[in-house]
């Protein structure tokens, strides 16, 4: 149950982050060259994640193999963290040659991820500070 829940949260979060990337035009964290592919991926991951997890009855008390409230929260945070790290790493890998790290403009925070990947942004920040 715990592993299933962790996987469920990770899968749904991964899909949601691609939706967010497509909707917010955060191309640096998108896995795809086209926005519609991001929406498609999100729809498949979110609906697939829900269908897979709820294929069996999950209303189980924690005394009979279910997950207690605090652990549900912990697994939720862990699943979300896994999805965020995976999104940043995979998008940086598949778009290693895409970014425009040298382009002008002093944008900060998430705005930077519209022009370059997370790893490119980190490398640029390190280079500027050294």
């Amino acid at each position: 149950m715990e592993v299933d829940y962790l996987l469920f949260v990770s899968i749904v979060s991964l899909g949601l982050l691609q939706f967010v990337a497509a909707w917010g035009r955060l191309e640096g964290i998108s896995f795809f060259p086209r926005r519609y592919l991001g929406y498609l991926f999100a729809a498949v991951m979110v609906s697939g994640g829900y269908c897979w997890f709820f294929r069996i009855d999950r209303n189980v008390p924690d005394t009979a193999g279910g997950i207690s409230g605090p652990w549900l929260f912990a697994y939720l945070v862990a699943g979300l963290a896994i999805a965020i790290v995976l999104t940043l790493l995979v998008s940086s890998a598949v778009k290693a040659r895409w970014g425009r790290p040298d382009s002008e403009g002093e944008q900060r925070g998430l705005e930077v991820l519209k022009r370059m990947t997370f790893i490119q942004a980190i490398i640029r920040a390190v280079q500027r500070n050294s």
Partner: protein
Amino acid sequence: MIWLDEKLFLLINGLAGKSGAFDWLMALVVGEQFIPVAMVMVLVAMWFLGKDAVRRERNQRAVLCAILGVGFACAAVSLINEFFDRLRPFEALDDVTLLFYPPTDPSFPANTAAVGFAFAMGAWFGNRKAGYLLFILAILWCFARVYCGVHYPLDMLGGAAIGILFSFAALGFLRLIEPLVTFFLKLARIHYLA
């Protein structure tokens, strides 16, 4: 008041068992996974989205408020449970259709309502559309809890009031520690996460 609460409970719970499809739907959304995960996903989307940097920051502050509000509301429900022990409807009444496992903690106030409404209210402070969406999810969750025989409607009203009240408390607390919130958001922005 209690009489009316029990009547209303029996009216809603009396619908259970009449439609297999609706029972299945309610049993699906009544648990601690389906709606809470959907609510958290709305908050995650709020964190990353916003027409411009100002609106995005407003969203992010609302997300922090929602999380803190849920924490406060859960603590308040736990505290009330120490002093007030109302039996669950399936323990106190006859002819209850139970579509969920029998919880052992007190019925009033409903922790699920407190969590759902704290999420919704917190989000509403920063983004009305997301807030309304979360209010709909919270109401659906509350209805399912009554439908499945786990809570009385008054438990839900009590939980919702606690959730909303402690969201305001969280908002006030965040204003009190404003420099810390600004520092946290700045730190996240430096690492391209806000």
